[in-house]
């Protein structure tokens, strides 16, 4: 497992630039921040935000003594009278309709448990997957007995958040031909905050790599599959959908997949949200360098990449 220090030790000039005030006057200087709408204000746990008489408390806050107090470190957000704090880094907070990539952790009666980087494992019911033999087919007892032929422990899948249970656990579904088991690729994990909600989370890069950006921070980078070869509605091919076998992947594609994965890792280590333009800029840069793909993970090369693509803005 390769890991990065996301921010190297701050250089000397940065610490010098940080002004420090005498403890007696420090509070007065901090106080002059406004509370305008759309203005990012950072806060930390236990910091009073406003009066609870005039405002409502949202996520990341609590009320004590008629004051709305922050409970996480992050940016204060205000919508009319609702004050909430969004943590800078946290686990994935699911919403209905989100696209997630997950890994099966357990097979239970009529359901699978799926690790989706959330506070609890998600649930994938047998009734919310497409089974071989047509979409309209009824579930039989024999299906329950052979659940492992569809998804086994450790399998990766892409799904959509369907609903929530009373305790906040999410229920997934794969009732679309775009969802289902994943193969021909590699999983990259990034902090969930770095994945923005997009029109489509299925990207296909010109370098022959398909990306699935799960909102939970799991990203699947795989070999490009042509639209025409994707399973049609009529020809729902169970063999292909639930297959555990990879297709043939040529060396160039393998290289492209690992290059894209490494670029994503570097962007994540620098805490930069992923966008298609950024990825393409970085890919172009990485190809120009003509170095080995694994060299990208070296700190200096990664920093150089970030500097180059940030300058292209």
């Amino acid at each position: 497992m390769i890991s990065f220090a996301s921010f190297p030790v701050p250089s000397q000039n940065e610490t010098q630039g940080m002004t420090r005030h005498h403890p007696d006057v420090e509070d007065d200087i901090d106080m002059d921040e406004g509370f305008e709408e759309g203005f990012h204000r950072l806060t930390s746990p236990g910091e009073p935000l406003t009066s609870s008489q005039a405002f409502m408390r949202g996520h990341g806050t609590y009320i004590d003594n008629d004051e709305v107090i922050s409970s996480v470190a992050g940016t204060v957000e205000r919508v009319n009278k609702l004050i909430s704090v969004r943590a800078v880094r946290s686990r994935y907070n699911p919403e209905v309709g989100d696209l997630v990539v997950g890994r099966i952790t357990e097979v239970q009666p009529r359901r699978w448990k799926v690790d989706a980087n959330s506070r609890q494992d998600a649930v994938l019911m047998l009734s919310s997957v497409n089974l071989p033999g047509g979409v309209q087919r009824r579930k039989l007892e024999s299906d329950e007995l052979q659940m492992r032929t569809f998804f086994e422990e450790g399998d990766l899948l892409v799904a959509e958040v369907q609903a929530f249970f009373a305790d906040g656990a999410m229920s997934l579904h794969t009732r679309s031909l775009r969802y289902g088991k994943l193969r021909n690729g590699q999983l990259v994990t990034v902090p969930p905050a770095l994945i923005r909600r997009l029109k489509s989370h299925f990207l296909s890069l010109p370098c022959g790599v398909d990306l699935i950006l799960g909102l939970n921070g799991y990203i699947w980078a795989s070999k490009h599959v042509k639209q025409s070869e994707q399973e049609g509605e009529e020809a729902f091919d169970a063999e292909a959908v639930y297959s555990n076998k990879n297709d043939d992947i040529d060396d160039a594609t393998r290289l492209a997949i690992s290059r894209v994965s490494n670029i994503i890792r570097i962007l994540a280590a620098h805490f930069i949200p992923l966008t298609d333009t950024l990825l393409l800029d970085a890919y172009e840069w990485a190809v120009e360098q003509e170095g080995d793909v694994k060299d990208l993970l070296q700190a200096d090369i990664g920093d150089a990449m970030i500097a180059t693509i940030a300058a292209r803005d």
Partner: protein
Amino acid sequence: MSSRVEILNDGGYRSDGRRQYELRDIDIDLSQQGTADGCCTITHGLTQVLVTVFGPKEAKMRSQTLHDRAVINVEMNVLPFSTGERRRRARADRRILELAATIKSTFEPVVQTTLYPRSQIDIFVQVLQQDGGLLHACINATTLALISAGIPMTDFVCAVSGGVHSTSPLLDLTTLEENDLPHMTVAVMPRTGKVTLVALETRLHVDRFADIFRLAGDAGQALHKEMKRAVKSRATRLVGAMETGMKPPMGGADAFERDVVMEDKMSF
């Protein structure tokens, strides 16, 4: 107090050159470690502690799952090279287990566990170096690791140790001083001034208790400023980094069709 080292000399200096109420140098590092959700390395004088937090995540131990709140699980590991004499401690060392239990009970009232039913929050404490004030370094590092993991807490928890030399109270003792003096650790929540932990393992005169207790409370407030500064500067950097990489995604209008057409028109 029959030690060869002079704990507090006539000039009012301690063996390492500090004044009575002076704390040692604190260095806080909140950078990412591996796959942890939150982590913090605190270097407090010569004591160094690394805390990593994983969670809230699915509770793996079914029997311990609580249906109305999250379970906090603290595991502590004292590395053999952390002390002067190299010694491998068993994981199940009573003393280590007790420290872990202390940390757990310190944070249970502060972390808003009710927001995460049936989940588990794992806290792993690695002691890299120790030179007194082990418990308070662990607590401070755990606070910061929990905050960097985005886990909701009602307040910071700032801990500091205090002791007394004959009648003069001292703050933030080193191992040398801890061996000779009665000492205790106090953890405060700075906003309300509430105390979540008082640990006293030696005998301390009851008249001296109030002094140290009050001093440790004040020292907690000073520590809070330092910890808050570290959290804010880390948050500023992360938010700043997120904004630098922000460019509107390409193809604003035709992006709508993406779910249908897989071949994206993306030029370099």
